[in-house]
């Protein structure tokens, strides 16, 4: 294992994060605060509680998941797209690194950044509402698993994309709708029966549900199903990344 290479890539990516600190940290804090003002106050004044949890507290896990998914995908996709775009990727290819090391460096850094953002949102939420965390260990596990899995997914997008439009299209047209329809702001039990069924096809539902369960013991679907869903997606991403590096797809001509 080329540990120095993993460390080099990781440090390089984290330095990039530091250079864009404002945009990396300030924007999620701001948008979370806005969500609280808009959803928490405006809607929360009508829906006082969901299954015994105040509406403000209820949306916290969903809000964190939302940012976690967006951040992971955008950090990781940009992280690998950029060296492809500028051409500096030649150095990665010419270095004695295996794909496992490349992925560990890029995905590790992207996941780290989104976990930091998640924690900041959690802290920011404290300013607005009180909440508790019933299963802290599982909460952390969900946080890490989701960050890593979606960073992997972002990494794949970054390799697949050969222009900036393609880089944006999946986050914009797939991730965003799925997260907003993924039960971040409501319990799926509030939906009409048919939609409750359809919504179960949305993988984000499982993530939000599992994550919320680790806070409040409240779940739309079983925790096992949530864990299985995230693990399944993780494996799928790993397989895809392995295939990309084996074939050199979009990486080497």
């Amino acid at each position, binding site marked *: 294992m*080329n540990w*120095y*290479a993993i*460390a*080099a*890539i990781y*440090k*390089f990516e984290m*330095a*990039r994060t530091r*250079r864009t600190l404002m945009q990396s940290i300030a924007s999620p804090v701001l948008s979370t605060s806005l969500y609280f003002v808009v959803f928490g106050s405006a809607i929360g004044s009508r829906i006082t509680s969901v299954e015994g949890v105040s509406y403000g507290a209820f949306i916290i896990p969903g809000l964190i998941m939302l940012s976690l998914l967006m951040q992971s995908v955008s950090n990781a996709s940009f992280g690998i797209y950029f060296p492809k775009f*500028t*051409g*500096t990727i*030649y*150095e*990665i*290819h*010419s*270095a*004695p*690194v*295996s794909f496992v090391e490349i992925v560990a460096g890029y995905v590790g850094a992207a996941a780290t950044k989104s976990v930091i953002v998640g924690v900041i949102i959690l802290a920011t939420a404290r300013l607005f509402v009180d909440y508790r965390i019933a299963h802290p260990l599982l909460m952390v596990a969900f946080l890490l698993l989701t960050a890593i899995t979606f960073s992997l997914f972002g990494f794949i997008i970054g390799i697949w994309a050969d222009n900036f439009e393609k880089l944006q299209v999946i986050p914009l047209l797939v991730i965003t709708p799925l997260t907003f329809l993924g039960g971040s702001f409501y319990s799926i039990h509030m939906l009409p029966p048919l939609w409750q069924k359809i919504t179960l096809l949305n993988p984000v539902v499982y993530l939000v549900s599992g994550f919320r369960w680790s806070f409040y013991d409240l779940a739309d679907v079983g925790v096992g199903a949530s864990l299985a869903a995230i693990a399944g997606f993780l494996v799928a991403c790993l397989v895809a990344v392995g295939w990309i590096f084996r074939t*050199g797809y979009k990486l*080497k*001509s």
Partner: protein
Amino acid sequence: MRNPAGCLPMTLLHTEASAPTAVDPVIVVKGLDKTYAGGFQALKPIDLTIRRGEIFALLGPNGAGKTTLISIICGIVNPGNGSITVDGHDVVRDFRATRSRIGLVPQELTTDAFETVWNTVSFSRGLFGLPPKPAHIEQVLRDLSLWDKRNNRIMTLSGGMKRRVMIAKALSHEPSVLFLDEPTAGVDVELRRDMWNLVRRLRDSGVTIILTTHYIEEAEDMADRVGVINKGELILVEQTATLMHKLGRKELTLQLHDPLAAVPASLSRYPLALSADGTELTYTYDTQAEHTGITALLGDLAAAGIRFRDISTRQNSLEEIFVDLVRSR
């Protein structure tokens, strides 16, 4: 100072490196070809052995396949059929062993604009699996006149400085083989000179250097051996001197004592050219030919009463040879 024996190993090393019989292969390319995804065949099967410690120049016109060949050896482009070994290690199966030996300065100027010089060079060392060694990075940066710029962001540097940064990155992990892909294209005179000095120093320290260049005089000056590639085909590989000798034409120039108005009819059987002011007579001959004709020419000149005050010869440049070679295909 009291120990002249300190010089001895260098001398030995040098003798060994320049002895044509001692072939110690570093890179062995066997039957390597390459067809890009679009169906374009960039390399026809190539056999090439690079010897330890030599400077090897790969010459060829644009699109000949130089970058493709280098990129495959370095791991940037997937190989086609055939095999490549570096120090006996296969570049695909045993890529860690081969890549950690190789430093690459690619043709295109691609750098991380936002990073500082120091960070980007240290990054390269880490990427190649080596622990930090600030003293080495410092030495490399000093050698390349980059030390004063170490804390500057790369985007603030001039093109020449960026090129130096790319060389520094390639040297960060102390490679034993260095590839320079058109290192002097678009580079100013000062940097070019610095670069060649560096290349010589590296070679003296035992590094094998493979370069491609459009400045063919440089290959002629620098390279121990030259490979000529055209349309993906390696046409020939020769000692630079042998190539010059084998294919070289020489020019004999006579500085005349008294200007001539025209070449006398008695000398018309010689390929002679008279300079515009009539003070220089140039004779072109083939070094390979059994008779150069010089003796006869000098005799006939004397007979015609033409006196000259100086005489000089000039070897044709590799460029001329090269153009001939490529044209004859």
